[in-house]
């Protein structure tokens, strides 16, 4: 898993992500997030990297 900054434009992506949820209710937002996770996970592909990302994400505190 990469830990160095890898975005070509972090602020632009952040805005796009938030805008994608505009006008969506809670349920629709959840579905959008789930779809996005699956799409991005397929982009990464590598099982080991995905597992590391899941582990990092799971550290909620």
């Amino acid at each position, binding site marked *: 898993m990469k830990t160095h900054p890898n975005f070509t434009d972090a602020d632009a992506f952040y805005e796009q992500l938030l805008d994608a949820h505009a006008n969506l209710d809670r349920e629709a937002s*959840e*579905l959008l997030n*789930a*779809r996005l*996770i*699956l*799409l991005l996970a*397929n982009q990464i592909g590598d099982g080991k990297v995905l597992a590391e990302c899941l582990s990092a994400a799971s550290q909620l505190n």
Partner: protein
Amino acid sequence: MAIVSSTTEPAFADAAFTNGYEFTQGTGYTLPEYPFVEPPDIRSGEVRRHAVVIVGGGITGLTLACSLAQLGVKAVLLDEDNTVGVKGAASRGICYTQKSLEIFDKLGIYERVARKGIQWSVGRTFAGQDEVYSFDLRQQSNFQLSTQPPFINIQQFYIEGFLVERIAELNRTTPEPVIDMRWRSRVTGFVQHDGFATLTVETPAGSYRLQADHVIDASGSHTPFHAWCGATLKAKKGDDRWCIADVRFSKHPPVERHTWIEAPFNDNRSVWQHLMADDVWRIDYQMAPNSDPAEVSSEARVRERLRRQFGDDLQCEIVWVGPYAYRSQCTERLRIGSVYFMGDTAKIVNPFGARGGNTGVSDADNLAWKLAAVIRGTAAPALLDSYHDERHEAATQNVLVTNRTARFLRPADGVERVFRQAAIGLARQHLFARSLINTGRMAVANTYTHSRICGPTGGQSVQNVAFAWGNGAGTGTVNDLLKWAQSRLLVLVFGYLSPSSVERLRQLAETAPVRCVQVLGPDEPAQAKEHVRDPKGHLQGACHVFGHAWALLRHDGYLAATGEVVDGDLVQAIEKSLGL
């Protein structure tokens, strides 16, 4: 002489249908009834010792009995019932994998299965009206070389009936029957001694005891042996409920496996659809969680479901209905003392992907040659422990895969449903997401990766490919060679053999329990009298070797090991695969 009081002997309880719903009798089918023969043990009181006693005459126990019969190993088979089919003419396990079909071919029932059953290789999965996943097994390389097709659908009682008849046929070829089939015989007690066990058997004519060196528990999911042996299990049960309908009707859907994740005609729940023998369709409907079995299997409900699926003009005959729940379970040790667990007693899987009955058949095929070799003294008793190594790995793998499917089909409420919804939506739009749609991963012959008797390049099943006999007498198959070798190992040597190699193989065949065959291309000269021709290289491909090489096969069609040169490595591989 003991005085038997007829007033205190309880009557033998016939095997009961385990559900009492409307259609358990099975319209249009009359199941066979096998005779109860009072064994002499009851009156004589003698406690006789047998090398092998198989408890349970279902698909697994019968496969083992038939395999042993063909290998010439005597066994007693005890079944509490006197017919095939546990719950009347229920279809139960219907999809038979290529590996199982290859095993049936080796046992001599494949022709009957192929005539009666339905071949298929295409599967489609639908969500709503959209197809979101499909496969054609003929396109997959691990199915292409065998002389058996990827799948045949047939009702489980046909397989069982064919096996019973084949065993009877084999019994007639020897002066004394090799398999002693004892119907209406229920095992009610078990004692483990040092190296053998005593079983108490209850029959309509009274009880008796017998002893066995090897007790094979193929008695199914309600086995008493787990408790008797102190077996530990890992189990998982959910609230998913289904209802099977076996029906004959006036429509003709394509002969493909169709699955709906969300079927509009079934309250957006899942539906499975398969054709079986006798024009009977097998349709599994997913019900609401924790559904009441009697309610969902009423005739009115079943007809309503069928009408919604196939239209108002449907004419249909309901053959059998059965509601079910399922669980998954893996026995942690497949051998405890004298007892070997196989079929559902070894593991229970969720019914998605045909990994239930088929793994029972493979469990039996795995142990049969090992029992034969140990009983004959051509292998060390340690060979029998490889059964656990190999079939426990297979069981664990199959439980894992089917649990994942069950989780997709009955996701936990909340976020698991959201992810499923996301996967289905994406699958409609993008190719990549189709790989997430999990309505069952069809069973394949499991590979053994940490068996004590397989080398690093061993542990894979060899497809039952065809080749040409060296003497020009037509085509043969791998099964023909395995049957010729019986419980001995089979050495296939590919390509040219030097004189010293020929001599080494000749000596090996004299001193070790092996049979050797040279495999050649269409025009290569043969150095060995026993040789076959592999013009398309299919046999070589199926053995996963290239160029000059040897492959060591076991009677269950699995590679024990491969190598390049006929030298000490081959000798060591042979010893290893016999537990020596």
